[in-house]
């Protein structure tokens, strides 16, 4: 699994989860955490979430929207959708290969 996510280091996996979470609409920090837990079972902690958010924002893959009170929602950008689609294709390939091989075993 090589691609644009490699540079994100330990934030690569959280980044995929965050981009996936934002794919169905803007969300603020805590909503992203609960959504990720709901669809993946992964309990993401605030330090990891904001480490990944700051990197994704700097890369232009997500953008912050106007803050309401202390909560600032984020939305995925076109560039973010593109890299997410690329990453998911790569993961799909791994899933396909894994299934084929485990079925053969």
């Amino acid at each position: 699994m090589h691609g644009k996510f490699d540079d994100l280091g330990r934030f690569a996996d959280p980044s995929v989860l965050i981009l996936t979470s934002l794919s169905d609409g803007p969300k603020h920090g805590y909503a992203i955490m609960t959504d990720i837990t709901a669809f993946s079972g992964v309990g993401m902690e605030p330090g990891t979430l904001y480490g990944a958010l700051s990197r994704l924002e700097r890369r232009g893959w997500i953008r912050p929207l106007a803050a309401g009170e202390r909560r600032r929602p984020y939305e995925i950008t076109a560039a973010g959708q593109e890299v997410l689609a690329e990453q998911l294709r790569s993961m799909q390939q791994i899933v396909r290969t894994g299934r084929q091989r485990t079925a053969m075993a």
Partner: protein
Amino acid sequence: MRPALADRLSRALVGCYPPRWKQRYAAELLDVLDQHRAGPRTVLSLAGGVLSTHLDPSYRMEIRAMPRLGRDTLGYLTIFAVIMAGLAAVTVGPAIARNIRESSWHASTDGSVGTVAFSRDLRLMVSTAGNTPWAATSTLWDVTDRARPRRLSVFEGGSTITISPDGRTVATSAFSGQPALWNVTRPRHPARLAVLPARFPSGALWGEAFSPDGGILAVSSMSGLVLWNVADPSRPRLLRTLAAPLQPRGPAPVPFGVGNGDLVFSRDGHMLASVSGSGQATLWNVTHPAHATRIATMAGPRDYFTALAFSPRGNLLAGVTYHGSVLVFRLAGPARPVRAALRPRILASARFPGGGGAVPASSCAPSCGVAAAAAAAFTPDGQALTVVVDRPETFPSTAARDTVFTWQVASSGALSDLTTIFHDVSDAQPTLAPGDRIVADGSPIGGQVHLWALP
């Protein structure tokens, strides 16, 4: 690890991120922590976040400041610092747990708390109580452990109050509305030293302030300003009486209940700023207090000042008005202060939320954007200005919300990079404690004092 300790450590770690990162993300992260049940994983994730952010070239500003240090050296130093911080957190965790975040307690039995003041070392706090000036009391508190404040004594007088820089003398108002000095070197047994005669025929006291060396007590009222030599507080001597300037084009008279304008000395003790007359800020030269003179008088935008603050270098004066406008004046040529920044009606533009104890936009007009009470202070390095404003809900609700605005301040006085924090409290009069990181709210209705720490 107990959840309460994990929560406190997590919040403490938010303060360890690089300043620019905190400016951008800290408020959001704290909001997430408000909703998240913190545990050891939370603490570890934040510690990892702090470390990786400090190692992130985008935030590693120390590289520019220390060009001779290599990237690896800085990395090792950062890792060492985080490990030491972790060890310190484990060993002094219980102490942090006692002193951090916030506490709230009933400070008055008659259901009102007015002014709150702190000693410079943040060990003593004094609060006033009483709905009428002639039946007011003052209470002295030991707040060394802010989670468990201890009542030390109750003595007569109130409405205005301040503590001398050495923490040995409290100035308050006597029952007749005159200034009074109290010896609090034995805080459980305060002794009245003197009652200072009123110098103006009418008008309640608006404020009292000790000079930074503690030798002068300034007392302001609507009619003017009086300077006393209190080097020996048992024998105060009158130094100067100064009438409030009359401004024919000034704002409307200060509304009932708002008449406690601010009074602050510059750090070098050479200047004094007061709210006087009909709400203007007046700058006084008190280098020679017996011959003090007015330097200039500044008006808000058709408004009256309620809080003032000098920058540490004394080259800037910030003011907050009753309607929530923030002004900064540059005092490079003190005789002619220049307005360097204006942020009009900051509450109205703060996207004040419509729920959760806030005033719905439909029901608060025309008072929306009005800061009923405010406090202001520059950070000790002078690079940021913090303004706390409190807007209560409409009567009879006692709900309110402190809104903390922080700007970066250029040497010219220009403001930039606004960050905003909201904090729910009961209807309250905010005060910024020395060091500007603790907000104290005295509730004029609920009789409570609420302390909370800025992140």
